[in-house]
């Protein structure tokens, strides 16, 4: 980017560094004690008794944590894959078409989960799924997976759409000029260019699904506790640093994923 002299550049505003640092401090400071005490040797979350990996070992050996973690990963993987496929289709349908009536409405509809409070969706799904469960007597994972898929779609959709809008349309037009069928043009030109966006979207969806509490708590059937709902259940009694250890792992996974998303979406569409 070329910066013209005198143009408005936020980085050059007075106090920029200070404000930025203060924001980072406010964002990350509260997490510091959580992480620090996950390495505590004693069974206390406020009293330091020495450095140890004890709670990581305990969480790792805890069967309930294991099964909840595996359940979380499976649900997040399946839901994010389905959500990404659907989001890619919606993104193509809202950017690679002639403008049509209702396009904005579709955009708003797809992003509905970003706007509607989670508790509203949770209660609505509780009632709807309860009716289906009673009618079919099916209590499996389809409820959890479809609910997660639904609220993951906008998170997958936004990076994919941004990528599509930023891509050079000339390349696709050129492919069409050279007698590529629409499918060939999509497969050989659009899709490869779009891939970083798709991966970014999928990872974002994965993290969102992995972290969800409210909807999961209301939708889960018997024996379907995920890692976050398991952690919520622990809070009524004494909290041990085991919760810190699990939180730290979840946090690390989320941070890694978001970093990857950042690098993927920075890759220029050539």
């Amino acid at each position, binding site marked *: 980017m070329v910066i013209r002299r005198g143009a408005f550049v936020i980085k050059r505003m007075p106090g920029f560094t200070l404000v930025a640092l203060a924001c980072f401090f406010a964002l990350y400071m509260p997490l510091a004690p959580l992480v620090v005490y996950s390495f505590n040797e004693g069974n206390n979350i406020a009293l330091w008794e020495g450095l140890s990996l004890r709670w990581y070992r305990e969480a790792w050996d805890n069967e309930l944590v294991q099964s909840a973690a595996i359940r979380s990963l499976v649900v997040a993987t399946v839901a994010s894959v*389905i959500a990404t496929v659907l989001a890619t289709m919606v993104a193509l349908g809202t950017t690679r078409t002639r403008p049509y009536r209702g396009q904005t409405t579709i955009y708003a509809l797809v992003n509905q989960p970003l706007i509607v409070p989670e508790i509203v969706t949770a209660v609505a799904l509780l009632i709807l799924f309860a009716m*289906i469960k009673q009618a079919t007597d099916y209590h499996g994972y389809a409820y959890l997976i479809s609910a997660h898929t639904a609220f993951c779609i906008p998170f997958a959709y936004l990076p994919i759409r941004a990528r599509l809008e930023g891509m050079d349309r000339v390349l696709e037009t050129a492919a069409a000029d050279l007698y590529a069928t629409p499918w060939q043009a999509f497969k050989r030109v659009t899709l490869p260019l779009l891939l970083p966006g798709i991966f970014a979207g999928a990872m974002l969806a994965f993290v969102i699904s992995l972290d969800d509490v409210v909807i999961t708590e209301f939708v889960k059937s018997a024996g379907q506790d995920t890692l976050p709902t398991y952690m919520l259940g622990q809070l009524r009694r004494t909290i041990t640093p085991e919760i810190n250890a699990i939180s730290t792992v979840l946090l690390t996974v989320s941070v890694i994923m978001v970093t990857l998303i950042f690098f993927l979406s920075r890759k220029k569409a050539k």
Partner: protein
Amino acid sequence: MKVAQKSLLAGVLLSMSSIALAAGQLNLYNWGNYTNPKLIEKFEKETGIKVTITDYDSNETALAKVRAGGHGFDLAVPSHSHLPIWVSEGLLANPRVDQMPNFKNVADEWRNPDWDPGRQYSAPWQWGSVGIMVDTSVYNGDINTFGIVLDPPQELVGKINVAPEMNDVITSAILYLGGEACTGDKQLLRKVRDKLVEAKPKWKSMDYGVIEKFAGRDLAASLYWNGAAFRARLKNPDVRYGYPREGYSLWADAVVLLKDAKNVEEAKTFMNFIMAPENAGLISEFARYANSIVGSEKYMPEDMATAPEVIIPKEFIGFGKFYPTCPPDVQKMYTAIWTELQK
């Protein structure tokens, strides 16, 4: 889309297998971190019934899910304050707990609680009380009064915590001022509000997780639950638990059979199972609260069987009472007081 199909297929297969196995299954819906894995292991070994535990974190969540129906649970463990709601809304089946073989082990005072007359619906799980924790190295006067937090002695000022539970705090303040729980007496409630607002500046916090803070001697007194007081004493031998003589609230969680349970016989087997002393002992060993089963102390860890926080000393038993959830108009006034206290 293949994934969706596969997961759907897997789901269908899963649901089919669960029907086929229904003879030996049980779905328990309980508070998180509240069920001793050893208890479940023992039950599975003795009966061959496979137990699936699902967690909830509040009476309201549990009630909402069961009300909606189709939940797939057989047993739930509501608190005494909510149990009458479950009964009146027709969410429960009546397994006649009072006629089960192991009912003979239930202590006399637990055979006919107000919230389950005749004890037909619920098998006892655990119970406890709301009282006063004090670090006696800081203050060694009389601790059997809510005055410790509402009119604190000088030594304790600034070192007091109060559990952030509206009903427990307001009920305690009402009892302290000589009223009845769930009273709608506005004059008294005004006094309650003034007392709480006046006392608050002398408190340090309104928070959970006090055990660590008593261990670290950051706190010297708290309005809190007996199980936590017991665990705090194991870490800080100066901590004592007071049973306020103005009256204090008791709570109990009990196992109930849901009306739409699929595994009724298995569920009844479980209800009977937990009323055996050796099994009730396992329940207490894990969550550290008392149960209501005579002879279960023999199966508890020794530090627990003799703990005055768990086994209420004779002279204080009479002050404790169960209080129901108050009527909505009273609840509204409580909320108003609570909101003012939070400011």
